[in-house]
């Protein structure tokens, strides 16, 4: 069906097609990404499990997991939300449904190719920037640019007077992440070397998170929560504080990832202070959303999209408290390079961000398919597998990180730390596997929604209808 629409006239493509293809692609990559995560975690717990084969070695799989989740699941879910939220907020239709479909098509092709190459060990050797530069150029010009053109043109053709905060984020973040990708590629394109390369690697890694993943995830919540609850956003002005503070503060602290490298000390101190200031947009966001929930807190229990969305917002609280302070010199020396950081990264991507996106994907797919969710029971199963699995993962890795930190400081022989971490590695695998299982349930539930969900009548929202199963 995708092939048919790719060469159809734009007017003949039903509205919402791009959203639907993006939505299912993102869930698919979430299943793949978390499946790989579970596989990798098993190897850390039981090193002789699937051994001696190059392609299934940990070092070949780890980066495939990370990028499948970031570029496959999270970014595609962003693409999906942009395809339906941007026009809805501008009271118009998507500028080009066809371009949207081409974007999702190229995205899947480019990502599959990139991950295949990474899997074979063809890498640039730069963390988060592992994709070789030709693939990165595909990401920039084959994925981000068309996505951006669609979003920017939809915003430009809006039929509303102002631009809602969500669209501010969408428009600006695509622009910024393109710049970040271009600058992040410069060491490979222009053979920049040494500390410049090391710094740019983490400049890229930090800014992809700070100018793409967290702000766009927050922007999604600015749409879903008011839409689901029917409450207007508590304060558009606090939303603006969030937006501008992200631009100013979140784009600067890249070097706090390299506090122990021989970078200029002024840069590290500057980054550390700016890193604490990230709490400004963070607190603005959380407060704004939680205040928007006023009078509608029953929906946190009763409505599955709200449940996902608010869980994501609540997870932003520990996320930002950790993030704001763990990068200061006082704490960083203890936790840097340990499982604590792994736990924190999963709190950001699997906790806060993924829950917000899952809510938006649930909501948007029902909306665009015009079908009510197939089964509430399965959705709740997904939720509980997701949150319990995540918590097991997060808590066990945090403990493992503190053990590693203590081992580092008290000069415990490294192998004793490995022994001490073993139970937490098993817990990590159990948690990750639960998340993976929940996602398989989700994919099934969404597939059944598309086939058998009750049709939503014209002029109604899916979440206004009662659940049937």
């Amino acid at each position, binding site marked *: 069906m995708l092939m048919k629409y790719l060469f159809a006239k734009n007017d003949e493509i039903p509205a919402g097609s791009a959203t639907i293809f993006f939505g299912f692609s993102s869930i698919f990559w979430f299943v793949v990404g978390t499946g790989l995560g579970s596989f990798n975690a098993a190897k*850390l717990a039981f*090193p002789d499990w699937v*051994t*001696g084969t190059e392609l299934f*070695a*940990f*070092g070949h799989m*780890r980066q495939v997991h990370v990028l499948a989740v970031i570029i496959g699941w999270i970014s595609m879910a962003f693409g999906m939300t942009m395809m339906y939220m941007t026009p809805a907020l501008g009271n118009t239709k998507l500028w080009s449904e066809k371009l949207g479909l081409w974007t999702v098509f190229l995205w899947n092709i480019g990502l599959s190719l990139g991950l295949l190459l990474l899997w074979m*060990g*063809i*890498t*640039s*050797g*730069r*963390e988060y920037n592992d994709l070789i530069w030709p693939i990165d150029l595909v990401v920039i010009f084959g994925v981000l640019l068309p996505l951006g053109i669609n979003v920017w043109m939809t915003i430009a053709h809006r039929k509303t*007077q*102002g*631009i809602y905060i969500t669209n*501010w984020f969408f428009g600006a973040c695509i*622009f*910024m992440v393109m710049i970040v990708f271009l*600058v992040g590629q410069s*060491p*490979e394109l222009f*053979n*920049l*070397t*040494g*500390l*410049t*390369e*090391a710094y740019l*690697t983490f*400049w890229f890694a930090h800014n992809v998170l700070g100018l793409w993943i967290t702000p766009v995830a927050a922007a999604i919540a600015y749409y879903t929560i008011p839409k689901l609850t029917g409450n207007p956003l508590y304060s*558009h002005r606090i939303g603006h504080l969030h937006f*501008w503070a992200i*631009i*100013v503060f979140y784009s*600067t602290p*890249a*070097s706090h990832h*390299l506090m*122990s*490298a*021989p970078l*200029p000390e002024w*840069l590290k101190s*500057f980054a550390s202070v700016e890193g604490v200031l990230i709490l400004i947009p963070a607190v603005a966001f959380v407060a704004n959303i939680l205040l928007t929930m006023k009078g509608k807190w029953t929906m946190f229990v009763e409505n599955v999209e709200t449940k996902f969305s608010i869980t994501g917002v609540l997870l932003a609280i520990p996320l930002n408290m950790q993030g704001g302070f763990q990068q200061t010199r006082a704490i960083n020396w203890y936790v840097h*390079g*340990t*499982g604590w*950081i792994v736990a924190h990264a999963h709190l950001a991507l699997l906790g806060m961000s993924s829950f917000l996106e899952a809510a938006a994907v649930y909501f948007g797919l029902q909306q665009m398919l015009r079908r009510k969710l197939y089964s509430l029971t399965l959705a709740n199963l997904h939720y509980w597998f997701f949150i319990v699995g995540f918590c097991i993962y997060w808590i066990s890795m945090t403990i493992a990180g503190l053990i*590693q930190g203590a081992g*580092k400081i*008290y*000069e415990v022989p*490294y*192998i004793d730390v*490995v*022994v001490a971490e073993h139970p937490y590695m098993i817990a990590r695998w159990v948690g990750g596997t639960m998340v993976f299982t929940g996602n398989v349930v989700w994919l099934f539930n969404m597939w059944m929604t598309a086939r058998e969900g009750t049709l939503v009548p014209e002029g109604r929202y899916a979440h206004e209808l009662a659940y049937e199963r």
Partner: protein
Amino acid sequence: MAFRRHKFGSAGIGLMFGFSMCITLFGPSNDFRSGVSTWVGLDKQLSLGRVIGFSYEDPTVSGDGKPITVILNKDPKTGVAIDPPIRAYVYKPGVKFSPGVNHPELLGPGVEDLSMRDGKISSASMSSGAVFTVSKGVFNDEEVDYIENASATRGWTPDKTLRTAGDANSRYVGKGKTIYISEGCWWCHTLLPEQTQDWQMFGQPPFLGDFNGEMPTAFGSDRKAPDILHVASRNSSREWMTMHFFNPRLVQPNSIMPRFDYLWGKQDANGNSIDFAKWRADYSDYLHGKRIYAPEVPEPARDSEVRALIDWILTSLK
């Protein structure tokens, strides 16, 4: 509340984002430029070549087109003994030079001047290949290490130098680091002892000039395993490394490192094909107490990947 029109919107984003880019990109670049290469930095870039990881000369990231580091105990041209032995970096014809040779300004003030004036690096040509060494000189009353193009200053040719050193004294350092990257060793090991007590355990942290011309640096961020920047100072046994790579649990029962037996390839050093299935069955018997000793680890072939990897570890990580 009605929406206000934000006329400064897009310009504001550009201004603020541009400002933060200036601070975080333009600012540090000045500091990086002033870094003077140390011996470690020069040794690293000369032994690794232009770039590790995906590149035109090595699109499959398997270690092609990299220089070879050799230990010389006599002069390849005159045959005069060199004591103590020195390292030379052999670039066969067509192998791309390291960034510092192509762009001497990367070497930092002083090192650049001496490498150009005394080291004659600008006369090195890729098509005929070159041999480099690191020499000591004095610049502005300070002792600095600089790159010497031994092909120009001493008449050493790549072929002759390789022949003089022989395979026993050749170290496939560039290929070894490539395998470190492509096998994802750096997902667990770091190359950056931290400025904490782990100095005592893992050795001193690197200096500013230790990285000039290295790409990628691959510090690593998640330390599931020991830092290995100075691992060869702690353990320099090739035999131990060989066993540890084949199956880490042969020498460290609690290790969670994967087995890298596939880096041996199909044949061992004597040209016999390696029977991995039999080895695993024997090892399983050993684990279950049916054998007293673990099976012997095959000796790696001369051109095997694991040989290059161990070469890199024992030569560069000191």
